[in-house]
């Protein structure tokens, strides 16, 4: 697990930490896709703002949820995140830029891209 400085985002509530321990990241807006493919400890970038994103984050034991593209989570979503102790952040960054920034702090992501590149060329 690596520590990530969350400064390109803003915590959705006051008592959310400015750093998150994470391992990898998933970007998707289909909830069942997140349920099928997210892994424990990942950061989830989504555009949904409703409370169900927290239910999915709890279910998959995710490190944090970031609502991208300047969208604002519903008050109930923020309340649920506090209750379930899921770090929830907002950002005006687009999902791609945010994922790029997270990947730049994630050595395993580099290794994965390299590995994928190798297998494709073979």
């Amino acid at each position, binding site marked *: 697990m690596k520590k990530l400085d969350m400064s390109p985002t803003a915590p959705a509530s006051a008592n959310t930490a400015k750093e998150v321990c994470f391992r990898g990241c998933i970007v998707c*807006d289909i909830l069942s896709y997140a349920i*099928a493919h997210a892994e424990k400890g990942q950061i989830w970038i989504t555009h949904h703002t*409703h409370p169900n994103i927290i239910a999915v984050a709890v279910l998959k034991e995710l490190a944090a949820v970031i609502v991208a593209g300047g969208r604002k989570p519903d008050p109930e979503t923020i309340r649920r995140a506090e209750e379930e102790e899921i770090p929830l952040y907002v950002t005006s960054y687009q999902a791609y830029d945010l994922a790029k920034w997270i990947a730049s702090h994630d050595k395993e992501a580099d290794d994965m891209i390299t590995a994928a590149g190798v297998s494709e060329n073979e």
Partner: protein
Amino acid sequence: MSAPLCKKEFFVQEFDFEHAGKAASDMRKLLMDYGFDQQIVRRLAIAAYEAEMNMVIHGFGGTLIMEINFEYIELVAKDNGPGISDLKLAMQEGFSTASDEIREIGFGAGMGLPNIKRCVNFLGIETKPGQGTVVTMRVDLGPDAI
């Protein structure tokens, strides 16, 4: 068959997206408190969540029943919905009858039943058009389950 060691019922409201996922979440917490193996709890929680969402979206609400037995944990999702007219199609990843409004909030991708199937050791679906659906899911408990 012997009586279950423990039986719990969770109620699921139709179109209640505010509380949707609560039954699965409560069930997950209960199983964690009982000290079941994390991987088993994870698989059951995913199956419960997907079954719960199906009842919220398609089934006019319903009941999720969890039974702990010696050899397996069983989840039964019972609804009073319209039933599934083509089960084979419903099991196909990507097929969904959900409305555009449902899809806009990230549901209805046609992944629910396939997700359940991947997580459980047994999946049984009884359904008749107009008479609701009963989804039975079982996860086997190995010797190290608790």
